C-alpha cells in the first residue's frame, strides 16, 4: 500500500502498462519532455524513450487518427487530450472511425485505443478548460467510457482500459488530480465497467461519478446529521452503465438523485432516470431527480462555483425527493 494522488496513480498505472506490454505507447501534446500540462506522464519519456512516449504535433484529429492506424498495426496507443474542450477537433475520428471500426469490419478488426481526457470544472480556468462532454461520447455505440474518482481506481482502471480490446475513453477528474488515497498495487479492483457502492444507506441513493463523488459523499454525511440514511454509488463507468447496481440500490432506498457536472439536458442523469423508472418504477417513492450543469456553455470562472453542483445542491435535490 502506498499513498498517492490520482495524478500519481495514473502515472504509475501508465508506467505499469508500458512495462507490461511493448506494444503500448503514449501519444499527446506536451506529454514527453514536459510530462503533460498536469504532469500525469512525468518521467515516462525519460524511462521509455521517444518512440513509446510521443510528443505529438498539436493536432487532436492527428493524435486520434494516427492512433487508429497504430492500432491497426497491432499497437495499443494511449492518447492524451490536453483538455476536455479540445477533444472536438478529434471528435470526427473518435465517432466516425474509432467507434465504428469493429462494426464496419464485421468484427474482424479491433481498435484498442485509449483516450485520456482531463475533464470537469472547478479549476478557475479559461474557456474550454472545464467541460464535461461525456454524454456526447456515451451516445456513440462502440466506445467505452470510464471515470475514476480515487487513486486506487485510477491506478487500476487506466491499466484495464489499456488491456481492453475496445476503445476506451478515460475521463480524468482534473480538479481531483491531487486528491490523495491509498493504492494497493497488488490488488486489482475488478471489472472497471461496474459501479461501486461507496456508502450504504436506506432512505435514498445518490449516484455520482468522477469529480462529484467526494461531493456526494459529503452530502450524504450532511444528510445523516438530518437523520437521513443516504447511499452513495460511484458509477465509475459511463458506458456501459452498471444499471444492475443502481437499480438494486433504488429498490432498497426508493429514492434516487443523480449528480454530474455536465448539463442535465440530454445527459447521463436523464438516461439513468429513464432506465431506473423502467426497471424499478414501483419501488420509487419520488421521481428521479437530476443535479447538474445548466443548459448553457460552461460559465466564466468567477461564477463557476454557482454553476457547479455542490453539497447544497445535492441536499436540495434530496429534500425534493423526500417531499413526495
Amino acid at each position, binding site marked *: 500500500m502506498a499513498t498517492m494522488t490520482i495524478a500519481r496513480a495514473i502515472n504509475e498505472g501508465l508506467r505499469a502498462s508500458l512495462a507490461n506490454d511493448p506494444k503500448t505507447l503514449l501519444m499527446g501534446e506536451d506529454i514527453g519532455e514536459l510530462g503533460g500540462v498536469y504532469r500525469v506522464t512525468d518521467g515516462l519519456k525519460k524511462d521509455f524513450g521517444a518512440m513509446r512516449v510521443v510528443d*505529438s504535433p498539436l493536432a487532436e484529429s492527428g493524435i486520434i487518427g494516427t492512433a487508429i492506424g497504430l492500432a491497426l*498495426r497491432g499497437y495499443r496507443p494511449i492518447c492524451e487530450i490536453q483538455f476536455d474542450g479540445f477533444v472536438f477537433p478529434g471528435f470526427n475520428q473518435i465517432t466516425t472511425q474509432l467507434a465504428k471500426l469493429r462494426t464496419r469490419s464485421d*468484427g*474482424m478488426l479491433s481498435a484498442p485505443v485509449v483516450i485520456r481526457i482531463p475533464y470537469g470544472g472547478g479549476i478557475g480556468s479559461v474557456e474550454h478548460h472545464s467541460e464535461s462532454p461525456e454524454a456526447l461520447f456515451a451516445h456513440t455505440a462502440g466506445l467505452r467510457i470510464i471515470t475514476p474518482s480515487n487513486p486506487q481506481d485510477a491506478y487500476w482502471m487506466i491499466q484495464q482500459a489499456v488491456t481492453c480490446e475496445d476503445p476506451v475513453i478515460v475521463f480524468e477528474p482534473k480538479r481531483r488530480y491531487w486528491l490523495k488515497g491509498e493504492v494497493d498495487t497488488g490488488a486489482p479492483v475488478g471489472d472497471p465497467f461496474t459501479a461501486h457502492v461507496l456508502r450504504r444507506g436506506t432512505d435514498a441513493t445518490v449516484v455520482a461519478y468522477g469529480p462529484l463523488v467526494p461531493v456526494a459523499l459529503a452530502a450524504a454525511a450532511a444528510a445523516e446529521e438530518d437523520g437521513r440514511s443516504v447511499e452513495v454509488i460511484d458509477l465509475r463507468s459511463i458506458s456501459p452503465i452498471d444499471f444492475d447496481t443502481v437499480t438494486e440500490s433504488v429498490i432498497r432506498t426508493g429514492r434516487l438523485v443523480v449528480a454530474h457536472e455536465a448539463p442535465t439536458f440530454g445527459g447521463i442523469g436523464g438516461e439513468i432516470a429513464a432506465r431506473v423508472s423502467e426497471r424499478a418504477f414501483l419501488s420509487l417513492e419520488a421521481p428521479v431527480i437530476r443535479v447538474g450543469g445548466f443548459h448553457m456553455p460552461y460559465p466564466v470562472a468567477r461564477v463557476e462555483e454557482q454553476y457547479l453542483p455542490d453539497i447544497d445542491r445535492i441536499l436540495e435535490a434530496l429534500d425534493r425527493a423526500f417531499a413526495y
Partner: protein
Amino acid sequence: MNGGRLPTAEFEVEEVERAARTAGLGQDRQAEPGMLRILDPEGRLADGMTAEIAGELVDFAPYLSTSDAPHLLSLYRDMYLVRRFDQESTALQRQGQLALWVPLTGQEAAQIGSGRAMEAQDYAFPTYREHGVALTRGVELSEILRLFRGVTNGGWDPRERNFHLYTLVLAAQSLHAVGYAMGIQRDQLADPSLPQAASVAYFGDGASSEGDIHESMVFAASFDAPVVFFCQNNQWAISVPSTVQTRVPLAKRAEGYGFPGVRVDGNDVLAVEAVTRWALEHARTGRGPVLIEAYTYRMSAHTTADDPTKYRLSGDEQEWRTRDPLARLETYLRSAGLANDAFFEGLAGEARVMASDLRAAVLSMTAPDLESRFAAVYAEPHPLVQEELRFFQQYESGFADEGKHA
C-alpha cells in the same frame, strides 16, 4: 472498346458554360509544367523519364517496366477488367441491385499503376473509389459490392490483403495510413530483419481541403513516417472544380511540409507505376513521406446519384476522352507489336465472364440478420448490447407464429 461512350446528355448548357467561364474553367489544362509522363495520349512512348525532385535529379529508369512486355499486357488487362467491373456495377445500380455506385472510369491508370507498384508487405488505405487498387491487392471485386449492396459496411479482411476497408468520411484514412506507417517504423526498430514496408494513403482533390490531410502530412513529416500520399486529382469534388480547392498544383503543397511532391500524368499507367515505385522505395528506406498527385479526370459521375451535366462542360469530357488511359496503352501495345486483335478479343471475353460472375455473385448476396449486428459492436461483452439483443430476440419471436419476420 475501352469502356465505350459515356452519356453526355446536355441541358442547361449555356448556364453551365457561363458558370464555367466565370470560374476560369474550360481552358486548356493539359500543358501542366513538371508533369511526369512516359506514354503520351497518342500512345507514343518516350525514351525515358527523369525529374528534379527536391533538388535531386531522379532517373526513373530502374522503376519503369516499359521493356517488360508481359507486364505491360497485365497492366492493360487490370485496367480493362476494372473498367468492365465499373460498367457492370453501374448497370447493377441502375437496375436497383446496388444502393449506390462510385464509378472510377478515367482513373484506371492512376489506380492500377499505383497498386501494382506496391509490394505485398505495403498497406493501402483507400477512399471509396479505389476499385482498381483493390483489384491489384487481390480483393475479390464482388466483395467490394457488398458495401454498395448494403449487406456490410466492410466487405473483406483488410489484414489478408493489406488493403484497408473503404473509408467514406473524406481524408480520415490518411491519418490511419500515417499511424500505420509509424507502427511499421516501430516494428522495424524492434526487428530489423522485417521486410521494409510503407503505407499508401489514397485521397482526392476534394479531400485535399480536409484538415485531416493537413494533419496527416504534418505527422508524417514530423516522424519521417514511411507513407506515400497518393492524390488522384480527378478535377472534380462532385460539382466543385479542383481550382476551388487549390491555387497551386496539389503536388506543390508537399514542399510546405518539407517532403517531395510529384505530379504525374494519372492517365499514364507506366509513369504512375514508376513514380509510385520510386516513392515507395523512398519511404521504405527511411527517407520519409512523398506526395504524388496523379493528374487525371473522372470521366463519369461522382456517384450514380450525381449529374455532371449540371456543372461541367461536355467539351471538357470530350477532351479528356482523347487522353483515355486504356486507349493510349492499347495504341502503344498494337504499334509495338506486343498485342493484336486476338489479345483484345480474348480479354473482352474474359471480362464478359467476369461481369457475368459478378452479377450472379451480387444477386446471391443476402442481407445479414440484424441480430448478428449486435455481436460486432464491441469486442468484449457489453451489458446494454446484450440486454437489447435479448429484447430484440424476444420481440422478433413474437412474430414467429405469423411467419412474417421468419
